[in-house]
């Protein structure tokens, strides 16, 4: 192997920066899952009766299901009875009413993650809901949002304060029987965010949630539900990290988005769960079901994701385009390194007339990792003039990694137009040498080239996330990518 190739290997083998553990007192359930555990969980959360029924229904169905095995993933069997299904900071009984009452250690954790809640509240205009293990710790900016009628709170709180809204929409996009992990989530989800944007309201700020798994041997099952009523607009950001631990931890989330007539939802994710070490030990198993329904005419949902973490990523943020003229978008950067495996992509289901979708996927594989794009474009028989454009690019770094592309297309309407473009390239030694000859270190050169490769997706991210995303890709680039 030449010097440059070795340098690339060293560069991409960077240490996980968010691998600290926060030492705080927690209440954790003993490992194991049965109906009693679910009942206890529901009781702790003080949930309305319909939730317990919903959970038990999901659990009973889950017991009849088996894990999906169609993905291009090699997964060690998961012992679902060895996982604890609830972990919370101890002061749960008297939940903090304001940031002043939040455990300073928790706030310190968020500072390490670069999310100074208090500062953000003052400066950034970003309202943050932070989910630590299983409970929501603090939601900032609640007052200001309340003034315009926006509800942004932990879903556990929404279940108490707006049960009718939750009941109306929960599980209507991703039913509890949808798939193995979604069923498990429905049975045991602990917290997550709830957003309701009333008719005609443009949410005055970006809404944001940070998830962190802290306790050992716990699973995190968060549930997010966003409803954008007619003519409303919202941009939502989600970030995730976890400490370094030798054992694999399970994360099975469900996100449901509902866009009514003329509504726009922009959902951005930067996922940086612990990916395991360079030998593939430890790391998060990330099985996520994210789906949006564009129910109203002219509605639009845009998913943007930057996936750099997790030992295993199984995730297909999708759009069901029901309303006529509705639009679905999926912009994705997925980077895998060492022994990471990602099988990710999207589904665009065209049902209404003149529905349009765009898919831009950028996969970067390094080390001994495997990176798979899997996407479905489905055009139903009534979706006249539906259009899809898919672009799917893979970048290989080194010669021990793999990139795979599985595009599925099902069209039942003759007027539909579906386009697919795919490329695979490598960072060439010539590119690297050219940059070095202009004075850049090999590290900066790789960063720059990878950033350039991802630019189409990064420009879809909100400003503050774009910066974080670039940093996450192991980049020391500061400021904007010109």
């Amino acid at each position: 192997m030449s010097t440059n190739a070795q340098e690339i290997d060293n560069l991409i083998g960077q240490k996980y920066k968010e691998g600290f553990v926060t030492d705080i007192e927690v209440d954790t359930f003993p490992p194991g899952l049965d109906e009693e555990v679910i009942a206890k969980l529901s009781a702790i959360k003080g949930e309305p009766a319909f939730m317990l029924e919903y959970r038990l229904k999901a659990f009973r169905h889950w017991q009849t299901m088996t894990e999906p095995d169609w993905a291009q993933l090699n997964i060690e069997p998961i012992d679902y009875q060895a996982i604890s299904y609830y972990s919370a900071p101890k002061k749960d009984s008297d939940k903090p009413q304001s940031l002043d009452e939040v455990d300073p250690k928790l706030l310190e954790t968020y500072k390490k993650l670069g999310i100074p809640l208090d500062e953000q509240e003052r400066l950034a205009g970003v309202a943050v809901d932070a989910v630590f293990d299983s409970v929501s710790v603090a939601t900032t900016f609640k007052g200001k949002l309340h003034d315009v009628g926006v509800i942004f709170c932990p879903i556990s709180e929404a279940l108490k304060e707006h049960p009718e809204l939750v009941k109306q929409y929960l599980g209507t996009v991703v039913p509890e029987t949808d798939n193995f992990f979604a069923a498990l989530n429905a049975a045991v989800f602990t917290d997550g965010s709830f957003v309701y944007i009333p008719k005609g309201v443009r949410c005055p700020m970006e809404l944001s949630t940070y998830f962190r798994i802290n306790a050992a041997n716990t699973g995190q099952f968060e549930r997010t539900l966003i409803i954008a009523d007619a003519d409303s607009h919202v941009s939502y950001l989600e970030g995730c990290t976890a400490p370094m631990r030798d054992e694999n931890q399970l994360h099975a989330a469900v996100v449901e988005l509902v866009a009514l007539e003329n509504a726009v939802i922009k959902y951005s994710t930067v996922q940086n769960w612990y990916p395991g070490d360079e030998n593939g030990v430890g790391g998060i198993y990330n099985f996520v079901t994210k789906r949006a329904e564009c129910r109203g005419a002219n509605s639009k949902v845009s998913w943007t994701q930057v996936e750099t973490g997790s030992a295993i990523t199984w995730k297909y943020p999708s759009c069901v385009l029901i309303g006529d003229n509705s639009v679905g978008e999926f912009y994705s950067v997925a980077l895998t390194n060492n022994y990471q495996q990602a099988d990710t992509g999207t589904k665009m289901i065209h049902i209404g007339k003149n529905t349009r979708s765009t898919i831009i996927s950028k996969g970067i594989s390094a080390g001994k990792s495997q990176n798979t794009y899997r996407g479905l474009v489905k055009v139903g028989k009534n979706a006249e003039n539906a259009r899809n454009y898919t672009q799917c690019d893979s970048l290989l770094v080194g010669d021990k990694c793999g990139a795979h592309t599985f595009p599925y297309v099902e069209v039942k309407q003759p007027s539909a137009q579906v386009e697919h473009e795919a490329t695979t390239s490598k960072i060439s030694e010539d590119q690297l040498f050219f940059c070095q000859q202009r004075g850049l270190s090999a590290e900066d050169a790789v960063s720059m080239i990878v950033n350039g490769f991802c630019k189409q997706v990064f420009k879809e991210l909100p400003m503050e996330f774009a910066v974080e995303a670039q940093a996450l890709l192991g980049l020391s680039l500061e400021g904007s990518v010109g």
Partner: protein
Amino acid sequence: MLSIKNLHVSVGDKPILKGVNLEINAGEVHAIMGPNGAGKSTLSHVLSGKSGYTVTEGTVTYKGKDLLDMAPEIRAREGVFLAFQYPVEIPGVSNIYLLKAALNAMRTHQGLPEVDAFDFLTLVKGKVKLLEMDEKFLYRSVNEGFSGGEKKRNEILQAAILEPSMCILDETDSGLDIDALKVVAAGVNSLRAADRSFLMITHYQRLLDYIKPDIVHVLADGRIVKSGGPELALELEAKGYSWVEEQVA
């Protein structure tokens, strides 16, 4: 400025350069001509630090320092600039971003603060004007979709911003029509200075019509077999490389 002594270079087991000697003083323009396979590009690659070449013997001293001991990016920051024969494309990275990153790498190396965004824009726009380029160039991805002439002009723009001491031009004339050649040559000539040296590698004499060298060398079979003034280039053009090769043999 640059002193090459008895340089032997192999690729794998195959010797390419077999004892090159060359002295370049500050402000001088040297041209190296030679037939295909003589080792011209190898010389430019070895001087700029490209991997894949083994120096088996000899030394290269640049401004009193051992050049061969430096990593490629250090050579660049110390002022050794290679204008590539085939400039690579970097999709998604804008020209202006690359220029700024390169300039800052150099400034940091020199212990200077990073360039102020406003000063940088003024500097770049000035150089773009000087080289008669369109400002739109700056915002396009590095070399992506550029014509041959645009790529070479872009290399000269980079040199103009980075202000190297030792400029190596590797077959800068290749792939250029006569109009493009004139523009690129004018750019190079505008960079000539008392404290800046040039090493031009070329196959044809025509480049030398536009960039007048002080000294012309003929590289054949891994050695410099003949050196002389600009008239040597004309003689070569008339008689062909076989003339030199016969003389040496």
